[in-house]
């Protein structure tokens, strides 16, 4: 009997702890994203404004020279912006795009990226170009860090904008949300021995921009 309990316990423990992702974000980013289209209806670039949380903003600006204490100009932040952009390259700028279901690579940011520091919040502004521009019936843009060190979330207020919106296209931003009652109920009805528990949680954590075009 004791043996049985032990085995049960060990199996339970394995399942409890074996799930991935037991860390948590150390950096939060609130995003505003702009999709830039050419007049011919192809997308030429994705422009991001990433606002870091207050703790990381304080950390990243630690020890930087500035004329006025506690304030940083765009020029004073330029070296930091360069380091940021160069480090992000290795992680594909955390921006993942598919065009009609096919992964599409973005190129390195165009020059002219910058950081600003307002109300003790650091914001990184940069544009990732498509080379060549892309036309698609369904374009999806996701921004995430698979290691969850950085938590990306689109702003509640005007998360995404489109420049030169092509005729007939429709922008759709899917933000994380609380589970509905029905979803919670469906989740609770999944048998305990079934592995498929991702349904409702997937919806809760979804964080993507969709662009539907005719």
């Amino acid at each position, binding site marked *: 009997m004791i*043996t049985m309990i*032990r*085995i049960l*316990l*060990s199996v339970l*423990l*394995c399942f*409890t*702890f*074996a*799930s*991935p*992702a*037991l*860390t*948590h*974000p*150390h*950096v*939060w980013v609130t995003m505003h994203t702009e999709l830039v289209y050419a007049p011919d209806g192809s997308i030429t670039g994705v422009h991001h404004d990433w606002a870091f*949380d*207050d*703790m*990381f903003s*304080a*950390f*990243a*600006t*630690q*020890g*930087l020279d500035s004329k006025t204490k506690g304030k940083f100009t765009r020029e004073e932040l330029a070296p*930091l912006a360069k*380091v*940021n952009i160069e*480090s992000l390259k*290795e*992680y*594909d700028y955390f921006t*993942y795009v598919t065009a009609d279901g096919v992964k599409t690579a973005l190129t390195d940011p165009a020059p002219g990226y910058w950081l600003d520091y307002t109300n003790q919040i650091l914001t990184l502004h940069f544009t990732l170009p498509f080379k060549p521009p892309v036309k698609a019936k369904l374009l999806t843009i*996701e921004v*995430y*860090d*698979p*290691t*969850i*060190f*950085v*938590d990306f979330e689109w702003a509640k207020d005007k998360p995404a904008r489109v420049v030169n919106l092509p005729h007939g296209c429709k922008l759709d931003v899917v933000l994380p949300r609380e589970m509905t009652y029905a979803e919670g109920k469906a*989740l609770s009805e999944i048998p305990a021995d079934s592995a498929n*528990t*991702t349904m*409702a*949680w*997937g919806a809760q*954590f979804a964080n993507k921009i969709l662009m539907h075009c005719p």
Partner: protein
Amino acid sequence: MTPSRRSALVHCALFVLCTLLIVGTIDVALAQPFGASRGGPPPDVGGMTGWIFAKQAAFYRMLSSTIRASKSDGSAAYTLMGISFLYGIFHAAGPGHGKAVISSYLVANDETWRRGIALSFASAVLQAFTAITIVGVAAVLLNVTAHVMGQTVRVIEIVSYALIVLIGLRLLWVKGRALLRLLRPQHHDHHDHAHRDHAYSHDHHGHDHGHHHGNDHAHEHGDEAHAWGHAHALEPSELTGKHWLRRGLSAIVAVGLRPCSGAIIVLVFALAQGLFWIGVASTFVMGLGTAITVAAVATLAVAARGFAGRLVKGKPGGGMILLRGVETAAAVLIIVFGVALLSGYMVSERMVGV
């Protein structure tokens, strides 16, 4: 050994290894924020895991507002300590707090749970101390940038991971040889001879000597100290009670040397608010919470090891081999953790260094 006992034992051994592997995977996979695979979006987390995940993130975010509030409101400092403590408890489920290394170390060395708790607390305190020293020297005294601080942390990490590999290698040398001796076939030829000698002369037992290696002979005479604590060690004098702390020091340093990036960010933030000492207190309280979680995991591993030990007590043959096998595997795991940390680290940069 009856089949049911044997199966219980196998399960127990699996349980020990499973526990170690899991905490290890967590530590290894997540110790490098940017080093892990980019296989897909953040995994969906639910249930207990999702709850822990959500809690620690929530507590971490609360830290910044509470630190701000402490500026004007003294009572917010108490709230901050409470949040720091809870954050530490939940956060230790994350990377860099050495649950895997400490647990494996305890299992491989057959240490007691009390020592496990002591090691957990000592390494957590050291970890808090490292974070405070780095920020204290680098940010307060020298006013260097976050980038320089990141590079400092990087050097410390390499030393820490290399130490973990060294500890693993040393344990593998000791435990692996003990296992090999048990596996040697001629071993059983001596089973019925001279075991009385073993029982009385275990203080001088030499592992290089063909006749003295058989700890499973000895424990049939009830010589538990010989069978469980001492028989498989390299130097008997090193294993007496007084020296466990000195021996454990390597594990404490290897685990505690590497500061937690969360603590560093909190400290720099507190400094920017002109509340460095509040940050220091918060870091130590976080360490206390961390130690509790690590100690709990370590105790679990020690208990499982102890249970496996009791099952094979007085049983010759396979049981001992299995136990030595678990110890050897624990030593190998430490090496694997160390190498993975070291190599995963080498190919990646950290956001904290930005």
